[in-house]
């Protein structure tokens, strides 16, 4: 079984648009949306949820105000700026910043604090028109998105094993931190989607370093390559020098937006003529399959 993760460094370059189309083109796969704090793939694939599971992330400190003597020891102990005092409420825990470390519970002389489990989100197993899908939604203002990514990937792997799938297709998160690293470990190929802008190039360089750091093979896709062909050439030159394959370039095509508004992957969007972007995505998918040796 092979695993492909689609990431970008910079947000909004077209990860989900591509993964939506790959979901149509790839055979015998499980789809995994690992952008757990702002997932969008379901807006193209319309999963029918079969199973919903609670996700318990980090624990949270809970204060019993009836025991609190406002000594402030907890706030001094906390390294995460999660406990502060206000005139009307006294010391309170801010759950959005609490990392559940237990240190305040340990130092409180009144035993007014305790550590409790919290449901930080939900993981889902679903069916789509194009195959099974594992996805999740982190509750807002929560930590531990990396842990939830790992849960989604484990779910996808289990489905793939049960159903004998050859491929796990992963839609990753923007950035280079916790959820991105969790979506990279042990994959066979990272497809990095960029755009021909100075921001796109800058962010591409950083995410390529992360991918190399974890020893994962990478390939690059330049989306909307024609919005600035000078920068596209700069990106191509950079990739050539680093020995990184370009999996394909995709033209700026208004049909991509129309398909998104219709809630359909662009390669499955029915128009009078095959659109240029859809054809380029299909050609790119053939090259990616070759890189993954899925077809062999």
């Amino acid at each position, binding site marked *: 079984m092979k695993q492909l993760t689609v990431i970008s460094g910079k947000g909004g370059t077209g990860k989900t648009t591509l993964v939506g189309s790959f979901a149509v083109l790839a055979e015998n796969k499980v789809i995994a949306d690992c952008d757990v704090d702002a997932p969008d793939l379901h807006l193209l694939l319309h999963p029918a949820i079969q199973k919903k599971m609670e996700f318990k992330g980090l624990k949270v400190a809970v204060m019993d105000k009836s025991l609190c003597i406002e000594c402030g020891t907890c706030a001094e102990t906390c390294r995460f*700026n999660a406990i502060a005092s206000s005139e009307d409420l006294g010391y309170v825990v801010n759950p959005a910043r609490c990392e559940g470390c237990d240190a305040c519970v340990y130092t409180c002389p009144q035993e007014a604090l305790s550590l409790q489990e919290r449901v930080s989100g939900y993981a889902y197993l679903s069916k789509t028109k194009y195959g099974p899908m594992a996805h999740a939604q982190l509750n807002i203002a929560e930590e531990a998105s*990396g842990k939830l990514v790992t849960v989604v990937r484990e779910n996808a792997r289990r489905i793939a094993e049960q159903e004998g799938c050859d491929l796990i297709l992963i839609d990753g998160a923007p950035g280079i931190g916790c959820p991105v690293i969790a979506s990279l470990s042990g994959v066979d190929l990272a497809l990095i989607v960029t755009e021909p802008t100075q921001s796109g190039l800058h962010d591409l360089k950083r995410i390529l370093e*992360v991918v190399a750091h974890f020893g994962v093979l990478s390939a690059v896709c330049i989306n909307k390559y024609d919005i600035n062909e000078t920068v596209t050439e700069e990106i191509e030159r950079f990739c050539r020098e680093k020995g990184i394959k370009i999996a394909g370039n995709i033209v700026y095509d208004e049909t991509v937006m129309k398909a998104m508004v219709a809630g359909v992957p662009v390669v499955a969007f029915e128009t009078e003529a095959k659109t240029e972007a859809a054809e380029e995505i299909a050609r790119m998918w053939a090259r990616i399959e070759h890189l993954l040796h899925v077809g062999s």
Partner: protein
Amino acid sequence: MIISVASGKGGTGKTTVAVNLALALPNGHVQLLDCDVEEPNAHLFLYPKIKETKPVHTPVPEINYEQCDYCGKCATACEYNALVVVPQKRVLVFPGLCHGCGLCSLVCPQDAISEVPRAIGVIKKGTSGDGSIALVYGLLNIGEVRATPVIDAVKAEIDPAKTVIVDVPPGTACPVIAAVQGSDYCILVTEPTPFGLYDLKLAVAVLRVLKLPFGVVINKAGVGDRKVYEYCEKEAIPILLEIPHDKRIARCYSEGVPFIKELPEWQERFAAMMKRIEEHEQ
């Protein structure tokens, strides 16, 4: 006044709004903090002269083996499994799992754990090439997982004498909270598409939890559909500004040029948005 610029979805134009807004305000009175420390971009538009680079550290435990009796209390206490005690032999520390909370050193009965700093990123301080804006941005080191300490380090540089604009990372999780907290107002940048709308709703939910006042900037107006507008109307969320889907603006962005420099009529529009935000605050 501290104004954060956030979005939920990535690539909607946070940096575009933050940089152009900063440039539209009176010279010398603005500080821009780029808190997207995973992929900071504001500096690509401001050509800054960097005057100072400071490392950001997080504490990790160090074991003094002369005092350690391998009781294992540190490993039991650690919520992140960052310590494993091999009886009578070693204490394995996994810095990548450590959150730097300090509990292991608090619970150690032998006082055998001290904390040592480990570098996880840097912050850079300087001024924009034209000298008008004070810029601070952070960079998380490659392979590091936790962005929040670097974000906190950027925010520790806030200059209260200035109008502070905070460029926030995408998403709705911990780095976003760390970046927006303490703001007086938050600008949410979205695009009028189904992805933009879905992620906007998540971002709105975050700001409501944090009880921060906010308004929306619609970028790439003209593409997609009208559902973002309908949502804002229904929820009584003010639309502060619309930036059209315009080839000249896209071209400026791709070249690393703030579009306000090429299209000076936007100076007034950003200044008017700022006025509206300030009036809201009074």
